């Protein structure tokens, strides 16, 4: 907090009113509703409401589809985070070491940040279109019996590839910034101590990048959980047989298409707890970094 602050009887309230109003109406109220609805059962016409404690939660964990979705989300997030971070780090190390044209490469690599996940999904759909898309033809020509409409692994491959493509640029920006913040004298000292490029990277540069890497990891998990909705919805819609349903997509499917209010709300609350944990981890990290 600031050592010096203003004191005024009503001005600060006046300043926060717009934000507080919007947060109350469009965040606090719906979030409270979600928690409330996760504990009740409503009949189809919304006439009778029954308080059922944790019944909605129990039925979620007994639902095989939910287990499938949770498993897919875990695999999907891990792969998307791993590949997009690895690729971005690799490119960032190369861009950092380059003498000429670094700015051009930077621009040519970061513009994808601005592409909406849904638009990325559409572009991916085009490329994987049966018989027409170049990627489809390439995979078939290479002898892969590629059929994302039937085979879950194939469908997962398409959404993972597109999600990675979309995420590399953000990770690249952070990794490059992280690399460039390593002081020259550290690099020069490292150069004297260790001649091998590869070993120098893993023993000196990589550990120095760890804080950035951790931050990027949290961002990527959040991205894989929530922002990939557009990719899934335009490419697979959770098919085949719910095999590419992320947890967030399932909240949407069960709530909006399946009209299962209680179940969908309980899933929301579970996700809310997950985000809470992620945010706490992130905050701890931010605090640590400040007190260095």
């Amino acid at each position: 907090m600031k050592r010096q602050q203003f004191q005024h009887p009503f001005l600060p309230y006046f300043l926060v009113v717009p934000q507080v109003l919007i947060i109350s109406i469009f965040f606090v109220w719906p979030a409270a509703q979600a928690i409330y609805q996760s504990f009740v059962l409503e009949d189809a016409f919304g006439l009778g409401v029954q308080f059922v404690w944790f019944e909605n939660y129990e039925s979620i964990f007994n639902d095989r589809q939910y287990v499938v979705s949770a498993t897919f989300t875990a695999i999907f997030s891990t792969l998307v985070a791993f590949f997009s971070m690895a690729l971005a780090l690799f490119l960032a190390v190369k861009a950092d070491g380059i003498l000429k044209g670094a700015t051009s490469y930077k621009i040519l690599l970061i513009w994808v940040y601005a592409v909406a996940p849904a638009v990325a999904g559409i572009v991916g759909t085009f490329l994987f279109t049966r018989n027409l898309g170049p990627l489809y033809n390439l995979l078939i020509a290479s002898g892969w019996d590629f059929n994302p409409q039937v085979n879950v692994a194939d469908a997962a491959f398409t959404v993972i590839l597109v999600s990675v493509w979309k995420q590399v640029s953000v990770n690249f920006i952070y990794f490059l910034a992280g690399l460039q913040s390593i002081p020259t004298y550290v690099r020069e000292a490292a150069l004297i101590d260790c001649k091998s490029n590869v070993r120098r990277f893993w023993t000196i540069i990589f550990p120095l990048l760890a804080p950035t890497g951790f931050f990027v990891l949290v961002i990527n998990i959040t991205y894989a959980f929530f922002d990939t909705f557009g990719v899934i919805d335009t490419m697979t819609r959770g098919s085949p047989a719910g095999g590419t349903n992320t947890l967030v997509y399932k909240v949407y499917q069960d709530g909006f298409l399946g009209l299962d209010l209680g179940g969908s709300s309980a899933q929301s609350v579970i996700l809310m707890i997950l985000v809470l944990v992620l945010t706490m981890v992130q905050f701890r990290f931010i605090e640590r970094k400040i007190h260095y």
Partner: protein
Amino acid sequence: MKRFQIFDHAILIAGVLFMLIPVWITFASSTHRPETLLSDGLQFWIGDYFWETYTTVLFKGSGFTGQVNALLMLKNSMILGLGFSIGKIAISILAAYAIVYFRFPAGNFIFWMIFSSLLLPLEVRILPSYEVVSQLGMLNSYTGLILPLIASATATFFFRQFFKSVPDELLESARLDNAGPFRFLVDILWPLSTTMVAAIFIIMFVVGWNQYLWPILMTTDESYYTIVMGIKQILNELEGNNVPKYNEAMALAMMALLPPVLVVVIFQRWFVKGLVETEK
């Protein structure tokens, strides 16, 4: 040493191509006749049907949504992108200013209430949010489209971090000169914040423009469709029985991605600064 640099350039060029080629194919294919695409597959080079495809999509609206053309959807996206970013910045600056620079009894409680919204992205509370908006009669309106998206503390958080990093001495000297809270905000804090505001504006514009799920739920009236959600209609069209007009679908995808990409490329320096600063 030189040989290694060539190798590095090769890797970077491969990375750039990995990023560019999918969008290039989309653009090249959008300039061909639908019949060509259906018989020969997607195209790698520009065809002779650019003008026809793009004028049809922009003005005729014969495409995917019946009466709505891309021009209207672009307008709606622009309203969403600008309304979202400007609204969010205005509200966030005021709130962050109050939280950082004032000591008031409910300050702590308000701080936690605002930041609790970081916990629950809109995607997770869509159903109750939809109900609230429909009870307020805001379905199919720009207000209903924009306000619920603004209900998040990300920008407030950035501005709070930024204000906290402004030296205390500024406020001390301003007070010696008898500057009140309003003057301090307008004459001292705002000029210091302009780069930060520009950076956050760019990020938020892109975020707003790229919204997909919320506009889908909110708008049943076609005149409120945004271009990014218009994509959902492309898919329905392609899956229908008519001869799929892939060229028009791809033209629409190009128009959905071009404006935010241009903004990021043109204001690249601010945008990168904004992203990196928010990490701190």
